[in-house]
């Protein structure tokens, strides 16, 4: 890990944040347009919303709250973007892999677990009942999605026989993993939406808790959290490309372009999911996740393992 | 980075954890002390593996330590809940009568 060559390190420092920010803006613009259309106004009027909101939040003051644990609060808020960037590091874009970590899948999972801490700290730090409830809701939700997510990530690893993301992408030159691991892919996609506290899994920031973890945030603090949510969606979409969608494989365009296109499409699906479902309440999700989803993923793993064993022998 | 240095750090971690375990009154804080000690054990085991005998077998020991930590945590939490439920307390001192 410590011996990255200089150039990829430099590239990853510059390119990864820029790419994530651009895609996050794209997602936010799409969401703004869809919201405007839902309200009965022209969709184009919502496209600039993320830029306007950024300007507004940069102009707004931050808050100093009595009795708050500002250190944990701010770590929780700023950490979301960082965790998203660290997740993107292991995604191979064309021939470039920003950080060639041999256990890339475990890396992604470890960064995902950091979100348990970050979202909870964000909820806890503000010293507000609604914010705290939001933080606890995220933990309840995480307990429901994390185990299925781990099993879902195991699927491609078994299929490729490696924990290295580059090799997992390379192992799909015949058949994309999404084709014979549909359950794992769906569980993965749902988990991405869940760890980004988005759409149907936005209960930690729900209206019933007065926007939960977001309730006391203002100014730049709010900006980094909102950006962090979109960045997490971007990271989840980007990581799905080498895991399930064949990496950079595709006709005509170069590999890096295909990675971007696939990421953007999946990102669009995630953003659109907000329209399709109401919130899935964490207390009801838990039972379904443990009683239904975990066995389903395990069956999926069994199928993958058998197929992989037959394929290799 | 030498074996001695890593072991020194592990020793420091272990003593800090030992202090926590001995001095804390609250069950969960005692558990945190134990965690710090196990943390030191992991570090020392990894160092010994790398500097003395980097064979594949050695890695298994680390997995065992990690598994031991999870067992410790799960049972610790369960015990803390039982103690809390039955005595409305989370202090080790209030459970001294449980000693044989």
């Amino acid at each position, binding site marked *: *890990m*410590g011996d990255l060559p200089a150039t990829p390190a430099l590239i990853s420092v510059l390119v990864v944040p820029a790419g994530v920010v651009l895609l996050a803006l794209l997602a936010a613009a799409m969401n703004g347009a869809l919201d405007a259309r839902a309200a009965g106004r022209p969709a184009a009027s919502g496209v600039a919303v993320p830029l306007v909101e950024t300007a507004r939040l940069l102009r707004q003051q931050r808050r100093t709250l009595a009795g708050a*644990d500002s250190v*944990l609060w701010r770590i929780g808020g700023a950490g979301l973007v960082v965790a998203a960037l660290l997740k993107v590091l292991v995604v191979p874009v064309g021939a470039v892999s920003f950080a060639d970590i041999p256990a890339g899948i*475990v890396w992604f*999972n*470890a960064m995902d*677990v950091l979100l348990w801490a970050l979202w*909870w700290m964000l909820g*806890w730090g503000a010293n507000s009942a609604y914010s705290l409830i939001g933080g606890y809701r995220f933990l309840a939700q995480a307990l429901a999605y*994390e185990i299925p997510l781990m099993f879902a990530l195991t699927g491609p690893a078994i299929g490729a026989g490696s*924990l290295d993301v580059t090799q997992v992408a390379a192992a799909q030159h015949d058949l994309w993993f999404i084709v014979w691991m549909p359950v794992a892919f769906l569980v993965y996609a749902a988990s991405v939406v869940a760890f980004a506290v988005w759409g149907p899994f936005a209960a930690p920031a729900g209206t019933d808790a007065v926007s939960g973890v977001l309730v006391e945030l203002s100014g730049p603090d709010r900006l980094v959290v909102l950006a962090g949510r979109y960045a997490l969606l971007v990271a989840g979409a980007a990581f799905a490309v080498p895991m399930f969608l064949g990496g950079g494989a595709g006709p005509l365009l170069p590999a890096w372009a295909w990675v971007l296109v696939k990421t953007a499409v999946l990102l669009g699906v995630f953003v659109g999911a907000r329209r399709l479902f109401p919130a899935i309440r964490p*207390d*009801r999700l*838990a*039972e*379904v996740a443990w*009683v*239904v989803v975990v066995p389903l993923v395990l069956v999926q793993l069994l199928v993958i393992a058998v197929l992989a064993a037959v394929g290799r022998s | 980075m030498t074996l*001695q240095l890593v072991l020194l*750090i592990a*020793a*420091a*971690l*272990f*003593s*800090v954890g*030992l*202090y*926590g375990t*001995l*001095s*804390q009154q*609250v069950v*969960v*804080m005692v*558990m*945190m002390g134990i*965690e710090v000690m196990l*943390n030191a054990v*992991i*570090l020392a085991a*990894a160092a010994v*593996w790398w500097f*003395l005998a*980097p064979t*594949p*077998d050695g*890695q298994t020991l*680390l*997995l065992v330590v*990690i598994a031991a*930590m999870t*067992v410790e*945590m*799960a*049972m610790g939490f*369960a015990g803390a809940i039982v103690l809390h*439920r039955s005595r409305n307390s*989370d202090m080790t001192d209030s459970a001294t009568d449980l000693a044989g």
Partner: protein
Amino acid sequence: MLEAILFWLFGVVAVASAVAVFRTDSMARASYALAVSFIAVGAIVVQVRLDYIGLIIVLMMVMEMAIMAVFMVMFMGMNPALMPMDMTHDKRRSVLFSVVVFAVLAAAAVLIPWPARTGSPPSDTIESLGNTIMSSKMLVMLTISPVLFATIVSALVLANPRGRYDRYGDGLDRRIPEDPQRGGLGR
């Protein structure tokens, strides 16, 4: 060079945050200080080419500490604000004992003539670990899994105040269990 700097950084962070666990006044900070300590140790473990195990340490321990923080807050009832607290006993003797233990361990670490390295590290530690636990050390894993399963069951039995007779009635004849909180399957 870089490796040495990183090692010192991680080492100092690991020990400093472990100390912070018992020095801070806030339960949440104590839990997450321990998480930082684990992350630093995980990083050192990755430095000795044990990528998989290092990352697993980070993954498991951060998760554990997130739960730990909830338990700490639940049982100790703290404000997020920094609250001076002293919930210790035998402080002086504990310090003394720990210092002695540290002295002994440190002396051992420095003074013992450690043997030279035997064998060479595998080129791919992850693959070698996988091969090991699926062949020569399989028995170890086979022992750990029932232990973990037994832990899950016994911890739940200990912690759960309501048995099936509470839920389904004395004759176990309730179709829908009576729970304080309804689950997602509508049972």
